[in-house]
């Protein structure tokens, strides 16, 4: 997989995906030399191609991120991966404090502040390479009948307190529903990227049911300089269903915790936990469910589906020959390749039919969705199109269950307050990094 390095402008190692940063410090020195050499000519290095690998450079403020890869991933995709890493670092420290730290001390060792977060970044990179949601910019949502999803949304809408801005219900890293403060949505909305980062952060920290977590967190796409205070609590003994409440008030823990109690109680009376565990046990959607007939012995279509305006994506259970991890990774590499061809900046495509060694792939992008499918190598073009049409018809029929279409809203503050900045998380003035 791709090697990923993060270093400071002074060439200090900050993170390395594999190996120890200290041992790699000379490698990082060379990287930094390349960056500054190009920089001295008022230019910026973007990438280096060698016979079998690509090096991609991203500079964001005082941080330099480098990816070295031998996979089929395009430069654009590797750049995206590096940006995810950068955003995850921001989610823990914020842009403004990173800038301030390096302004004061150019050779600061940022690992001091990121201690313990290597796992979070490692996990993020593994997800980026295995979860189609990251590639498509969409969050995986748990397929659930619309009536049940609405009921859960309504339940979150009722459990509110001042300064609460987002209520998010998650089951095994799949989004169940997300409710937003009305005043916030006008300015901005919850970006899939921010949700990915938030869910990764939660997934990477230990949890048990009795504990309620209260932590500052920055949603960099929403506002790279401010913190929200996140309340995170699991609702079942197995720690599969998780409630995340984001507030702008760092002192509001007890009030927010009280909201959770109300949610918990309402869910108990409605039997929501059983509904969710039912939803988790039934496969996301299987090819059998789609009911595509007439291709005995052929590979089922495996399709991460993405509907742009909804930014959510269910993806089917991988079946047949794609049960092993290596095969899944190989298939996902092929999807990466198709994705890069479709989104090529020089020659973008809308439809691509690709015959590979072991399978035939078909990807299709319209203004409404992005669909990636995989067939047996013996499929005909007409046959593949026929299956695709059926699949799309099925998705259309099931879209209320598969996608989150209209996220509900609530209003926690009768008067959003402080001028135009109402509903925004508190920024640099919150004193979180005053001590530095």
């Amino acid at each position, binding site marked *: 997989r791709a090697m990923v390095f993060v270093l400071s402008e002074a060439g200090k190692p900050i993170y390395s995906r594999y190996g120890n940063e200290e041992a790699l410090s000379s490698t990082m020195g060379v990287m930094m030399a390349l960056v500054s050499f190009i920089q001295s000519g008022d230019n910026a290095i973007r990438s280096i191609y060698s016979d079998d690998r690509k090096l991609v450079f991203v500079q964001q403020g005082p941080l330099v991120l480098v990816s070295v890869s031998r996979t089929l991933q395009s430069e654009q995709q590797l750049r995206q991966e590096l940006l995810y890493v950068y955003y995850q670092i921001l989610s823990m420290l914020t842009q403004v404090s990173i800038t301030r730290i390096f302004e004061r001390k150019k050779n600061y060792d940022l690992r001091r502040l990121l201690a313990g977060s290597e796992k979070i970044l490692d996990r993020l990179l593994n997800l980026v390479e295995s979860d189609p949601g990251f590639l498509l910019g969409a969050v995986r949502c748990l397929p659930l009948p619309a009536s049940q999803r609405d009921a859960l949304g309504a339940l979150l809408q009722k459990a509110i307190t001042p300064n609460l801005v987002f209520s998010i219900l998650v089951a095994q890293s799949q989004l169940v529903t997300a409710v937003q403060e009305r005043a916030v949505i006008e300015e901005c909305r919850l970006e899939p990227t921010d949700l990915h980062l938030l869910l990764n952060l939660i997934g990477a920290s230990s949890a048990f049911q009795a504990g309620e977590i209260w*932590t500052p967190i920055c949603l960099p796409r929403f506002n790279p300089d401010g913190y929200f205070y996140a309340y995170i609590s699991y609702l079942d003994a197995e720690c599969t269903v998780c409630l995340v409440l984001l507030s702008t008030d760092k002192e509001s823990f007890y009030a927010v915790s009280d909201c959770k109690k109300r949610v918990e109680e309402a869910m108990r009376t409605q039997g929501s936990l059983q509904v969710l565990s039912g939803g988790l046990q039934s496969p996301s959607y299987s090819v059998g469910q789609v009911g595509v007939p007439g291709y005995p012995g052929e590979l089922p279509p495996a399709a991460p589906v993405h509907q742009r305006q909804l930014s959510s994506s269910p993806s089917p259970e991988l079946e047949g020959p794609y049960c092993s991890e290596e095969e899944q990774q190989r298939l996902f590499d092929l999807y990466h390749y198709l994705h890069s061809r479709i989104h090529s900046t020089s020659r973008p495509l809308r439809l691509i039919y690709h015959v590979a060694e072991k399978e035939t792939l078909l990807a299709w992008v319209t203004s409404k969705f992005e669909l990636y499918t995989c067939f047996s190598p013996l499929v005909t073009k007409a046959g593949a199109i026929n299956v695709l049409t059926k699949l799309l018809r099925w998705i259309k029929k099931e879209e209320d269950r598969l996608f989150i279409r209209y996220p509900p809203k609530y209003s926690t503050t009768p008067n959003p307050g402080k001028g135009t900045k109402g509903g925004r998380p508190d920024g640099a003035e919150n004193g979180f990094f005053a001590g530095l």
Partner: protein
Amino acid sequence: MALRELKVCLLGDTGVGKSSIVWRFVEDSFDPNINPTIGASFMTKTVQYQNELHKFLIWDTAGQERFRALAPMYYRGSAAAIIVYDITKEETFSTLKNWVKELRQHGPPNIVVAIAGNKCDLNDVREVMEKDAKDYADSIHAVFVETSAKNAININELFIEISRRIPSTDTNPPSSSKGFKLRRQPSVTKPRCC
């Protein structure tokens, strides 16, 4: 029986075992592959102490430096602070001394300080002598125990000792309603502190 709510926070370097101590105390379980805490984790456990019920409101804080500035939010209004170090890592004991200083300067005036030298099951690789730690604890009038969250050594004793040190409410008659009020106190007193 009277119910008293006691806010307790755990402080100390990352990886010394704060969360493990809390898990052992609250759930009586241990996970060797525990991940670092983010921010702080809140838990409660009620135990009987003499003729009172003590409900511990436990704030298990993250030891990583980036969360350091948040600590006042958790120790403010605390009845007790448990500062944890790792007996196999000398530097965690120095961090502990800094926490003691910080509590003396900014913490609540009557806060009970307890020092826990965790991982005492790893005696072979010990770096901090029990006597040195004990002497230091005595010099600051702190509770001192060596604990092992892994082997469940001295975990309950630590909290019992805290219960014992907390000034009793005899001066003002204890009542259950009093207990409930305490819970709201942090949010009431905060504006005055800042």
